[in-house]
Structures are given as C-alpha cells and as structure tokens.
C-alpha cells in the first residue's frame, strides 16, 4: 500500500521553446491506499503525462512527487528504485515484448531488480497466474501469442516486480468486449488479493463505473472532479458540458426522471439502477 502525493505539479513540454505546451497546470493530488483509482479525461487532458510523472519517466517542471514520504527526485540516481515501486503498464504494452520466450520477457523486470534465478522464477509463475496466462504459454515466443495474450504477458511483466502501486494506461484499449472484461477482472482480482494500490487510466465510463472506487476527471491539465463514482457521475450534466461521456445507464436514469420516475442522480451501474427501479415501483404499489 503505497501513497503518492503530487504537490503543485506543473509540466511543460518544450519549456522555453516557441511551441511549449502546458500539459499539467498546478495539480495537487494524493493517490493510493488499498483502492482502484480511475483517471479519465479527453485526449490531451494530461492523463498520460500525469501517469509518467508517477514513476519518474518524466520530471515535473514545477512541484514535487512524494512517494511514501520521500521526494522521488531528491536523488536522481535512485530513480530506478522508484520504478520498481511504481509499476507502469503503458498504452498498448504488447509492443514492448522482446525476449525469446514469454517466461524470459516477464522475468526482465525482476532480473533488473537483481534477484536470484529461483526468486525470478517464482515471481514469473505468480505474475503469470495473476495475469491469467496459462503455464503452457510461458515457453512460447511472445510473438506467437494472440493480441489479448500478449497484453496479459506485458501486464505480467510489470506485476512480476510486485510494485506497491500499479499504474495502467488504457489497459483495455483495442480489445474485444470479452477480452476487456477478462483483463479488467484480472486487475481487480489482483488488487483484492495483493492489496496493491491500482490506478487505471481510461476513456471508458462503463469500465470506470464497474472497476474503480475513486474517479479523478482531468480537463485541460487540471483536476476537474475528484470523488467516488457516485459523486462524480451524479454531476453528469457538468461532465457532458466538457464533452465527456457518462455511463449509458446514467442517461437512462436522467430520462426516467423526466417521465416522473426519480431514482436519484448517483446511478452508474445497471445492477444498482435495476434495484432502485424495482424498489421504487414496488414501493409505489404498496
């Protein structure tokens, strides 16, 4: 259970050049604990920049990133240790696979940590299991796997480092609905068992609603909203006003209200909506 604190973070691409872009503008956030945090926002809202600041791939132009009470840039030579603690799965991570076998590829991280071969082996098996990769696949070439399996192998490569904070940038992008559900379920399951803090960056409101405990909405380099799913999605009119979507069922609830069936503003899953509607209907009949 790690905790990352961002203090007054600003990030400018190409600072001092004619085309400088302010990607993040004075952001302060605390993320972590035993939760799944979702970060959503438009393309260009600063999500991916934010994520790369967390493990020190980018250095903030202004402000500090505090991991477990220590500024990660205090000693730039030790930035690698930060990357072992904050595991980042990048967008389309299957394109980073390179080794001869899936097993060796997953072992890349643990080997960089300087572990003994036995330890590495144990980590690989554990990570493969969490990511839902069958053991028979481990000795295949990563390039012989299917798209979904490659994604899992890449995920396992990061889980194998046993990071205290697991950050996933669009983990389900480009997968079919079945693959989406499977990989997100694996992540949720992994979070429950290991107690790791998880951060998921996503466009999909449905995924956010189903898998996250807390949602942070980014807009033009700033934090636009921050709260539980219920809190964030109940402000659906504001989300729509900045061009973001809300879960389909939230639209349904808001339409139902117009027809006189008010089931509240904090509806964001079908399950909850069904229960609410049934409760309403039965209550009215009684």
């Amino acid at each position: 259970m790690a905790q990352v604190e961002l203090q007054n973070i600003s990030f400018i691409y190409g600072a001092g050049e004619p085309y400088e872009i302010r990607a993040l503008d004075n952001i302060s956030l605390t993320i972590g604990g035993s939760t799944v945090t979702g970060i959503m926002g438009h393309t260009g809202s600063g999500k991916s920049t934010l994520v790369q600041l967390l493990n020190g791939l980018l250095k903030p132009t202004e402000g500090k990133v505090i991991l477990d009470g220590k500024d990660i840039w205090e000693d730039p030579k030790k930035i690698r240790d930060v990357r072992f603690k904050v595991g980042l799965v990048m967008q389309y991570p299957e394109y980073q696979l390179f080794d001869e076998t899936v097993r060796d590829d997953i072992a890349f991280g643990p080997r960089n940590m300087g572990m003994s071969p036995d330890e590495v082996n144990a980590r690989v098996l554990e990570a493969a299991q969490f990511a839902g990769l069958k053991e028979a696949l481990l000795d295949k070439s990563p390039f012989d796997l299917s798209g979904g399996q490659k994604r899992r192998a890449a995920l396992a490569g990061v889980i194998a480092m046993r990071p205290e904070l697991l950050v996933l940038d669009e983990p389900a992008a480009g997968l079919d609905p079945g693959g989406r559900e499977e990989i997100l379920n694996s992540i949720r399951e992994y979070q429950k068992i290991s107690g790791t803090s998880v951060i998921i960056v996503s466009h999909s409101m449905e995924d956010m609603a189903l898998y996250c405990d807390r949602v942070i909405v980014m807009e033009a380099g700033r934090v636009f909203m921050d709260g539980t799913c219920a809190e964030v999605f109940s402000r659906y009119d504001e989300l729509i006003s900045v061009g973001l979507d809300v879960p389909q069922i939230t639209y349904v609830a808001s339409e139902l209200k117009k027809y006189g069936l008010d089931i509240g503003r904090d509806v964001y899953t079908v399950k909850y909506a069904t229960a609410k509607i049934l409760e309403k209907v039965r209550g009215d009949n009684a």
Partner: protein
Amino acid sequence: MNLDISFGQYCEGKSVLHRMDPRAKIIASVLYIIVVFLAKNLWSFGLLLLSAAVLILASGISPKIILKGMKALTFIIIFTSVINIFWMKGETLLFSLGFVSVYLEGILNAIMIALRIIVLLIGTSVFMTYTTTPIALTDGLEQLLAPLKKLHLPVHEFSMMMTIALRFIPTLIEETQKIMNAQKARGADFASGSLMKRAKTLIPILVPLFISAFRRAEELATAMECRCYTGGDGRTRMNVLHASPKDVVLCILLVLLGMVVIFTNGLGGYSLSW
C-alpha cells in the same frame, strides 16, 4: 538520451522561398555548394555570410530556430577547425609548445573552414529542408532525375522510397521513445555499465522497434496496393510543378554570386589552401 532533431525539419511559412519550385531549390542548393567551395579568402567568406543572412531573411524563418538546429553540429564544426589549427604549417609562427606549432595561417584556415561548414549548412538547409516539404523535395528530385529513366534507372521507385523513409523518421523516433519508456518502467538502465553491458541493453529496444517497423511496412504496402499502386508508370500527379520566372532568377542570382566570389578571391589577403 536526447532524440530531439530540429535540424532539417520543415518549418511552415509563406515566404518567397517556400513558394518556389522545389526543382529550382534543388538546383540552387547545388549551385550554392559550388559557390561555397569557390570562396578562398576572407572577403569571399564575408560575402557568403552576407548571402546566408539574406537567405535566412528571405525564408522568414526565425534565426533562433536555425541556430538551435545547428547546435547539434557544434562539435563537428569545432573539431574540424581545431584540427586545422594544429595541422597547418605556415610562415608566421605564433607560438609552439613542444611538437605542436601554431601558425597565423592555421588560425585563419580554421576560421574559414568553420565559416565554410556553417554557411554550407545554412544554405542547403534553408533551400531544401526548412522551406520545402519532404514530399515536394522528392517530387522535385524525381522530375529532375527523370531523364535517367531512359537509362532504365528506377527513378520513381527511388523517390518513392525516399518519400516513405522521410515520412517514417518522426514516427520511428516517437516509437523508440515509447519503447524506451516502457523498458525503463521495467527497470532497464541505459546510462550505466560497461560498453558490452550497454550494448546489451539495446536489445529490448531494437527487437520491438524492428518488429513494429516491419509491421508498419507490411501495412503500408497493403494500403498502397488497395489503392491500386503499381509503380510510377502512367501515374498522374495532384500537384503539377510549374517553374516561374522567379525560379530562373534565383538560379541566375546564384551564378552571379559565384562570379563575384571568384572576383573577390582575387582581392588578396590570405587564401585558403583547399
């Protein structure tokens, strides 16, 4: 690792140079290179510097961008001219330290060599890369080389390959950066260790990079075939190049510049030996 390459990137603009025919600009670059190598003494180099300044002004590109682009090449410029200081033997000995003797001629030579490289870079990059899109450039080159088709040289294929290669440089740089970040996130260390060790750390970058390059090549080939591309024969163009009087004027101006440089070479003063 710094992958910033602003030198030789196209800069959008609406200047006279931007609007010129790429064929004229290619010819102009060749002429300019010849003129630069004609210059032998400080007078001529003064003239060349002036011409480079005029070119920058005419291109409407901020001198800042051009200077920044040259930064990456500072080392080469300094290295070549410093070597000249020590290697040149002349008549006026300034001082000598052990076996190293520095002559006035050596220093003059070094200055002129540095100027030669700088002016050459400014001239060619302003004519070709800063003011001409890669597509226009390869288009122009294809048409200039068109007579070689008679000798059955694959001119069109060559220029298409060049267009594609230029198009994919930024894409591959971006891709490399992404893969490096992904491997860094898994603890790859590119900056320390012995040479062997560092060479080994390139494998996790090169393998995915090659695979994606091949994938892209295949996808591009399919996409081109889907649009019935079969090579250059009988293909018409969307942008037909038209030479205008100003293109001819540019080339004439450069020939004149060359003549003036030959004249100023005769004005005396120390003359560059090669």
